[in-house]
């Protein structure tokens, strides 16, 4: 297998000691003819030249300062330049698409919360206000409303991709489990968000949803009392759904997405099932085998999380 070139890191973020030395015969500056060392002395450096050099090094210096204190570049280059198996294709973007849908929900949700009133008597009026009076309010509300459906659809398609590509198998079972928990949390998010506009559809959909919960034997009746915060859907129900929708679940989802991504980077991705594993050449030492090319990214040489 041909070795791929190392990705190019922009010159201006590389600290001067690690930079490629200038070509012999030049002093590294553009627009100047090579100095004739024999006939004339090298041009003296003015304070403007020194300032130019410092300005050129500034981005690298700032990054070096942060890196020295965090080790971030090792982590980031390991994560962003990690190897992916042969055959990686558009189906592999579904997880990122789901993440993007979540980010849309988080951002639009924060701005909707600036105008929304989680009170049973004012919720409907505040949503009407968002839709009818606030500039771009209907657009942001619409993004949140339709984005919720998009996220649920994408999460299922992503799950289907994982299932049909066999990407849930060893060593990625735990990531499947985390993904299922994320699916459940997303469905709970959709359910609790449904009540918040407090219109007829929200009200009856929540009544039906809570009653379906209640049909579970033994715990069901208590579960529906817990969801409603009482025997009937009331003011506390809306406050409770709002708190779950906006505080409890987003935190849990963000934490689990972090764990999900960590495991994706740590374990690597699988090759599609139609890509055959390459037979390792006996002549090559084991340490130089590229584990990601065999469809098993868990090998030691493709581990991108060492930073």
């Amino acid at each position, binding site marked *: 297998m041909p070795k791929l070139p190392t990705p190019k890191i922009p010159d201006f973020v590389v600290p001067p000691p690690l930079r490629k030395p200038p070509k012999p015969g030049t002093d590294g500056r553009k627009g100047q003819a090579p100095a004739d060392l024999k006939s004339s002395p090298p041009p003296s450096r003015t304070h403007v030249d020194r300032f130019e050099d410092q300005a050129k090094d500034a981005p690298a210096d700032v990054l070096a300062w942060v890196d020295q204190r965090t080790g971030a570049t090792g982590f980031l280059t390991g994560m962003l330049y990690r190897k992916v198996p042969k055959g990686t294709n558009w189906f592999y973007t579904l997880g990122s698409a789901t993440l993007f849908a979540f980010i849309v929900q988080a951002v639009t949700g924060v701005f909707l919360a600036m105008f929304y009133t989680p009170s049973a008597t004012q919720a409907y009026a505040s949503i009407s206000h968002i839709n009818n009076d606030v500039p771009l309010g209907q657009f942001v509300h619409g993004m949140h409303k339709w984005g919720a459906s998009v996220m649920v659809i994408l999460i299922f398609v992503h799950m289907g991709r994982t299932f049909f590509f066999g990407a849930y198998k060893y060593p990625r079972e735990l990531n499947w489990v985390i993904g299922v928990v994320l699916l459940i949390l997303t469905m709970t998010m959709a359910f609790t968000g449904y009540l918040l506009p*407090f219109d007829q559809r929200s009200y009856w959909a929540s009544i039906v949803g809570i*009653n379906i919960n209640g049909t579970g034997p033994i715990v069901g*009746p208590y579960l529906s009392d817990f969801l409603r915060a009482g025997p009937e859907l*009331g003011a506390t129900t809306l406050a409770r759904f709002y708190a779950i929708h906006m505080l409890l679940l987003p935190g849990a989802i963000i934490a689990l997405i972090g764990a999900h991504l960590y495991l994706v980077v740590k374990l690597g991705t699988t090759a599609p099932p139609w890509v055959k594993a390459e037979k390792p050449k006996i002549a090559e030492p084991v340490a130089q085998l590229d584990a990601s090319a065999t469809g098993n990214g868990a090998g030691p040489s493709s581990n991108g999380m060492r930073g």
Partner: protein
Amino acid sequence: MNGAEEAPQQRVQPDPPGYFEGESMTRRRAFTIAAQGLGGIAGAAIILPAVGFAVAPIFHRGKERWEAVGPTSDFVEDTYRQVVFTETEGIGDAGKTIAYVRKSSKDLEEEPGKYVAVSNRCAHLGCPVRFVEAAGNFICPCHGGVYDFQGKRIGGPPVRPLDQFQTRVRNGQVEVGPRFSVTNQMEPVRARDPGEFTGGIWEYLYPPRPSTFPPP
């Protein structure tokens, strides 16, 4: 713990490093247990009240609420009159519900002089049912549940008869009170949520909730 002079005879092997004479655990272990225990107590002190606060409404029963819905002369034996009253306070119109009220009927062998208030909440999933005068039935628009004149299920997916409200007469006015459910034999039981069976073993599989009122 025996006296210090007995210890040398009992001890077969010297104490392992980290143990002081007569001690049953290392100090490191003792401090680990103590620190974890204190952390656990501190965590419980935060978590338990918060969780209790969230689940407390399960065990809380609100105040019994009665509301007059009209003079006794408004209600007859052979048909229902629709009344609207507040079941949940503090949420405006969303807290209102509908009951179909009539006088108890001799033909149906009901106790005379009482009033029957049938809830419009379908026993399937809680959609609002409507009394259809021509058919003498309650019909649910969502999934086609049908109930007879008394509220007994005669078709569709509902699992039990329609709920009822307690009634009483005060100052010539019919008042409706707390909700209760009925079994298929029309015996009153504590209010159940829609979708939950009543009577027989179901009384244990769908236990009565502490937040509901005892049946009449």
